[in-house]
């Protein structure tokens, strides 16, 4: 198996973590057939297996199920990232409840997509996180907007750098929540796709680091923070 795509870029090595073997098989087959850009190098059906497998294969991107026995995706994130912060995680889940989404993002995932996503979109998302960018589903963008909203009576802001979104970031998030692709956002706001990516990454960082009450509450609902 060649490590290079025809375009010359190295293939993105993907590791699948999901407790449903049927789902793993499906994703693997889809990724293998529709693209040359990614390559599934391994898979795991449980937390322990995943931690060991990720350490052995050292993949570029881990596709991580949120709900699994023994602590779920958040536990995998915690254990892997304790020793290795280079591996990039993309959470993939059926649930898009705020607690789940925010919890894995704050545990260190660089993106969140639901399992109903199309295969082509999944490939795009994998490539994007592999490049170091963030992937926000519309609903995740909605949650983040909600969490950073300036409501009367909200908790005071401790760190404006982390606890507030810039107007531009807000605009980008709004368009993401409306279902716009990065390219469409760029042309809508008259900025480059690269700038859109920068804004989204910055929002991701704030979502992960901010101490805003809503974020810590959503995360603590899954005993994470």
């Amino acid at each position, binding site marked *: 198996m060649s490590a290079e795509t025809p375009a010359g870029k190295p293939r993105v090595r993907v590791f699948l973590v999901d407790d449903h073997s049927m789902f793993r098989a499906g994703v693997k087959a889809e990724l293998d057939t529709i693209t040359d850009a990614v390559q599934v190098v391994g898979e795991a059906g449980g937390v322990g297996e995943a931690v060991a497998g990720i350490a052995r294969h050292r993949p570029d991107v881990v596709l991580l199920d949120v709900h699994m026995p023994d602590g779920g995706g958040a536990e995998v994130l915690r254990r892997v990232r304790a020793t290795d912060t280079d591996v990039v995680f993309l959470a993939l889940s059926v649930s*898009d409840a705020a607690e789940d989404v925010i919890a894995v993002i704050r545990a260190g995932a660089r993106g969140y997509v639901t399992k109903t996503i199309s295969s082509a979109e999944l490939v795009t998302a994998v490539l994007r996180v592999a490049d170091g960018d963030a992937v926000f589903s519309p*609903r995740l963008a909605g949650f983040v907007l*909600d969490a950073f909203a300036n409501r009367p009576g909200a908790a005071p802001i401790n760190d404006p750098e982390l606890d507030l979104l810039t107007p531009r970031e807000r605009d980008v998030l*709004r368009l993401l*929540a*409306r279902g716009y692709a990065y390219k469409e956002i760029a042309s809508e706001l008259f900025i480059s796709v690269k700038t859109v990516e920068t804004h989204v990454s910055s929002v991701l960082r704030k979502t992960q680091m901010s101490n805003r009450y809503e974020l810590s509450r959503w995360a603590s609902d899954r005993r994470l923070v």
Partner: protein
Amino acid sequence: MSTQLLHAPEAEIDRIERAATEVAEPEDLRFYRRREGRAVAGVAGGLADHLDVRVLWVRIAFALLAALGGAGVAAYGLLWAFGQQAPSDRPAPEVGARERQQAFGLVAVGAGLSVGMGTLSGMVNAWVAGGIGVALVGTALVWWEADQAQRRKVKGALLGGGRAAGLRVGAGALLVVAGIVIFLLRSIGLDQVQFALLAVFAALIGVGLLSVPWWLRLVRDLGEERTARIRTEERAEIAAHLHDSVLQTLALIQKQSEAPREVLRLARGQERQLRSWLYGPAGYGARPGVPEDTLSEAVNRIAGEVEDTFAIKVSPVLVGDCPLDDRLRPVVLATREAIVNAAKHAEVAEVSVYAEVEEDKITVFIRDRGKGFDPETVPGDRHGLADSIHGRMERHGGAVRLRTAAGEGTEVQLHMPRTKVSP
């Protein structure tokens, strides 16, 4: 959808249920006290059912036996204590008024005979017999109440039946004590009674103390048993829900596997239903404390309706929330109309809806990546966009913006200022 589609799973369920009843079928030959149509505790009736003779004969036998030094009364008491009350689902025999009168008459005869014969034979004197009689009536009252409690299926304690039950048990206990006191007064002297009562109380307290661990265990076991029952009931409810919803949908999906649109519609509908069942009344990411009728709930609801009707995927994203008022209801209706338009005309599988609640305004975007259209060329007889969206929004002080072009999808933007700033 025809019921034929459900044929296979239903037949399967039928078979399982039949098998279950067959296992429980063997006839129950145990002696049960009658639940209905009884004079005292249903012992005579139960015995008659058990031996397959007439109740009247059994009752006469008890009454006659009562004359032999109270043997009938003792036998009745023992059968009462050891015989179980019939389960409520056993068929009860019809009992006429005449039979009831006979029964009560025979009870009186039996009591009279036992006391009378006892007195006549000189085995006991009238006082002793009276004391014992009063005590027996008291005991009967307490036991009868226990039966009643079991009938009511009172959860837990024996005394859990309201004031009337407490009164009955108290009266019974009082009668028993009175009977014993009468008995003692006649058998021994007054000064000895005091001593005897003291001894009895001391013994009772001793027994009470000794049996504390046993009582505690009883209470704990009862609690555990109740927890287990609640858990079982909960599991049964979940199983029933999954059976009614998920399993039926899966069965339908298997039958319709060659119709992808239909499968998609079923799957989406089921997913939404299951989510709202799992995550509470407000659907996605239920937030407790949000009042009943809110914008987010309304938008999720209409999104679900359109999904069901047009077999497309509608993914609403909501930022902020507020209660519905008279200015927001038109927004919700216009949103619905816009989603329906997209579902009908855009030829897409997915419509995204984004609603944001800000302090001073509400904005809703309904977007599809479908074929789009040229607003200038819409025939004049199409009222959807003009009346249901533009007209509705403008009448209530809102505005509509439309972005579309042939081949580039459509986005309807609804803006509505809010009536009041949220507190």
